Structures are given as C-alpha cells and as structure tokens.
C-alpha cells in the first residue's frame, strides 16, 4: 500500500513532531544550566503551572475577564469602525476631513490613550474598554474605507443599470463587494484590540491575563510568566482557526480565490 505523506494525518503528525522537538530543545537548554532555574524553568515546570492554574481556576477566571473586556471593546470598534469606514469610503467630504485625521490617529500606539482614559474614567473597566476601542477602531475603519474604494467600478455600474440606487446599491453591492477587505480589517482590529488590552492590563488594571502575567513578574515566578504567555498564544491561535480563518476561507472560496 502506498503511503500518502500529504494526508491530514501526516500533516498533524509533522506538527506534533515539530512541537515535541521544540520542547526537547528547551529541556536540553535547561539541563545545560546556562541560566539559574528561577529565570529559565523547564518545560515540565511550566506545564505543571499550567495544570495548576487551570485546576484552581485562576487562569480560567483571568481568561474570562480578559475575553469579556476584549469582546466589549472589540464589539464597539466593529460596529463603529465598519460604519465609519463605509461612510468615509463613500462620502468625499468625510474622506478629506475625517479620513486624514484618522490616518494620523492610527499612528498613535493605543497604549498612549491609557493616561487620558484613566484621567477621564478613573481606574476602571471603562478606561480599559476605551483603550481597546482606540486600539482597534482605526484599523477597522481604514480597512473598510479602502475596501469600499477598491470595489471594481463595473460592479457599481452593473448594479446601477439594474435599478440599485442609493441605499440599495449600498447594501446589495457596495457592502458585499467590500467584504473581503472588511474581513481583513476585522482580523487586524482583533489583534490590535488584544494587544491594547494586554498592555492596559499589565500597566494598570487588575485581574485578567495581563495582570496575571505581571503578578508572575512580581513574585519572580518565571514559570507562571511563561505559562500565561502560552495561554495567550493559544487563545490567539484558536481565534484565528475558529473565527477569522474560517470566515476568510469561506469568502475566498465563494469569490473563487481558493479551491474548495
């Protein structure tokens, strides 16, 4: 029987082997004792911390709190970002005024909003939501705007001749035609929101994953620091696989950019 090395089974096997190889490398480095144990824990120690953290629910609670903040902030960004982007893309006056202004604001790292947010809202949930919104809003807006501007004019002409004018042209042609670009903006917005949240949590706000990371530093508990970082990476990967990867693939298949 011929073995197909391209089958999904072998793909997963290759990935597992790769991660085992990374862990082995880590273990070897640990055994060589270049660094003191408290600065460079073994994979086993970190794994133990992970298990312990999930068992006594501190990780789960932190994940829950961070996710809640993220979803609120990102949700606001999503609604306002796409709306604003569509408006800027369609209305020339807004493009010239607000559009240019947003390009400037986008260059500002989102964490720079934190001092302002704390003075405005105090050290609370509103401040962190504000930072998350500011972190992700502009990239969603800009991507939506460019999505609208990059629509092939022939689609608009076709829509117009078939009687789609004004709002109906907008919902039936402009919106779906811009969707692939909007999706890219949403994905980018998500990662910006995530970064802003972590920066905010590390600096000021209690609870959440960023806070847990900072507690690890304060306790000189390197294995907790690494364990929390691993949790963050895993969450990013899951989000990519489950939500954005799936949505993007679906759109690419419909548009014929990727074979099913």
């Amino acid at each position, binding site marked *: 029987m011929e073995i197909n090395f391209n089958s999904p089974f072998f793909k997963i096997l290759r990935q597992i082997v790769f991660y085992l190889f990374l862990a082995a490398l880590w273990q070897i480095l640990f055994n060589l004792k270049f660094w003191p144990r408290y600065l460079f824990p073994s994979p086993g120690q970190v794994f133990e911390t992970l298990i312990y953290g999930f068992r006594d629910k501190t990780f789960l609670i932190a994940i829950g709190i961070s996710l809640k903040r993220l979803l609120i902030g990102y949700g606001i960004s999503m609604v306002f970002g796409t709306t604003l982007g569509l408006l800027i893309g369609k209305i020339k006056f807004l493009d010239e005024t607000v559009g240019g202004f947003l390009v400037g604001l986008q260059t500002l790292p989102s964490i720079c909003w934190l001092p302002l947010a704390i003075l405005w809202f105090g050290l609370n949930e509103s401040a962190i939501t504000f930072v998350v919104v500011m972190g992700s809003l502009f990239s969603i807006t800009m991507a939506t705007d460019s999505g609208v501007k990059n629509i092939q004019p022939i689609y608009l002409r076709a829509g117009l*001749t078939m*009687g789609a004018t004004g709002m109906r042209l907008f919902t039936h042609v402009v919106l779906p035609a811009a969707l692939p670009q909007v999706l890219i903006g949403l994905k980018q917005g998500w990662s910006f929101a995530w970064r802003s949240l972590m920066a905010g949590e590390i600096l000021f706000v209690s609870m959440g994953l960023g806070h847990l990371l900072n507690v690890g530093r304060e306790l000189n508990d390197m294995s907790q620091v690494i364990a929390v970082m691993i949790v963050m990476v895993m969450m990013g990967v899951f989000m990519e696989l489950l939500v954005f990867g799936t949505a993007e693939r679906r759109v690419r298949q419909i548009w014929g*950019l990727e074979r099913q």
Partner: protein
Amino acid sequence: MRVVLKRVHKSFKQKGQQVQALHDINFSVEEGEFICVIGPSGCGKSTLISLIAGLEFPDSGQVFVDDKIVEGPSKDRLVVFQEAALFPWLTVLANVEFGLKIAGVNQTQRRDCALEAIKMVHLSRFVNSHPHELSGGMKQRAALARAIVMDPKILLMDEPFAALDAQTRQMLQEELQELWQKTKKTILFVTHNVREATFLSDRVFEITARPGTIKKEYLISIPRPRREQDPHLLAVQTTIMGSLKDEIEKVAKQELDIDYEISKTGVVTPVDRNLGSNI
C-alpha cells in the same frame, strides 16, 4: 422603444488631457431593430453605450429614449458588459434574481422568472454555481440571463463576446440571433468584429478613430436565420473591412510609432523594414 442621438459630443480627461471621445454623433434606432456599432479600439464605442444607459451624460447634444431625454440608468435599458460583471459573491441564480429583488418582486415569483431566463441561455445545470466556476462563455450566458429576466425594452451590449474563443463566440451569436427573433427586443451591440456585426445586425454604424464620428451606415438586408458563410454576408464584410482599415491605421499611428502603416494584406509593418539592405 426608439433611441435618438442628436449632435452628441463627449470628452473626458485622461492623464490631465482633454480627450474627445465622441464628436457630433447623430442616429436613431427604431423599435425592435438590431444595430451594431463597429469601430477601431478606443473610438468611443463603449462611451456610446454608457450614454444611452444613462451612466454618463453628453457634454452637448441630447440622448432621447422614447422622446424623453435620458436622465439616468433605467431598468428599460440594460447593459451586458464585456467582462460579464456578474457579482462574484452571488450564485448564478442570485445574480439573475438581483434586478428583480431590487425591484421588490417576491421570492417565489422572482425565482420562477430567473429559472426561466437561465433555461433560455441553457445554464440550468449551473444555477447554484458561483461565477468563478463558470467558463467565459457561461459567464456571458449568465450575464445575458440577468439582463433579459428584467424584460428590458433595450439591450445594450458592450463587446460581450470579445473575450471568448471563436467556437463559443459563434455559438452565442447564433443563440443571440434566435433570442432576438423570439423576443424582438431593440438591441444595440458594440463590437470591433466585422463578421460578428454583419452576422447579427440590421444596420451597422461604422465609427471613425478618435474623435469618434459616424463614418458610414450599412444596411444589411439579408434574411434570417443567417449563415456564417453566406456569400452576400462576405461581400458586405469586405466592403466594411476596407473602410475600417483606414481607421485602424489611424489608431495604430496614434498608439504606436507614427511611421507605421498597414500593408495591403492588412498586416502592420514598419516602413523601415528593409533598413540597411541597400547599403
């Protein structure tokens, strides 16, 4: 539905320069006529379509449809574009239903109409496919179905078969001829293919190189259904071809080097071809 163009001028900006696309265009199309507009590339044929469709407006002169000045797009005048312009995010069925949906036709009714139109262009097996799954010819069939389902009074076709291979093109031309005979719609068909123009139409308008003006009008009174090899058809084609060659040469001179000329065989050759052979 009658289409009348009166002293139409149209120019547009290209790379900062004002380019005159159409110059003093006058013609009228009677109801149920099949008209072909032929001319070298870049002579403003597509602009003509846009003007009648109401997507663009003349700088001066008027475009009348049924004695009313065209003020914008209308479902009575539908365009079939060269690139098909199907919406890639919709299935064939949804694409064909699009215009009816916009018009507010209820779902069962528009589905029935769409399926009927799709059947007319022989695409029933691809109802649920997305445009990228179709070949070039099938895309144009779908685009045609999308237009005829709206039952427009005028069909404006902007080089719809230009990007297709010879066999597919021939097949679609014959089907279009049949469709026109059945429905008796007014069709304005833009092409740069002389054979296509003579095969399909009642009258052919020849447009000059930029700025486009109507150079000649040819009446083609050969009964239908026509055959591709009809000797009468070939005779008309030769006449038009001869007249068109001058225009194509003008365009070549504009676009290529100024010293290009078209030889009698119709092949573009540079005058300095035998450069150095007499040394």
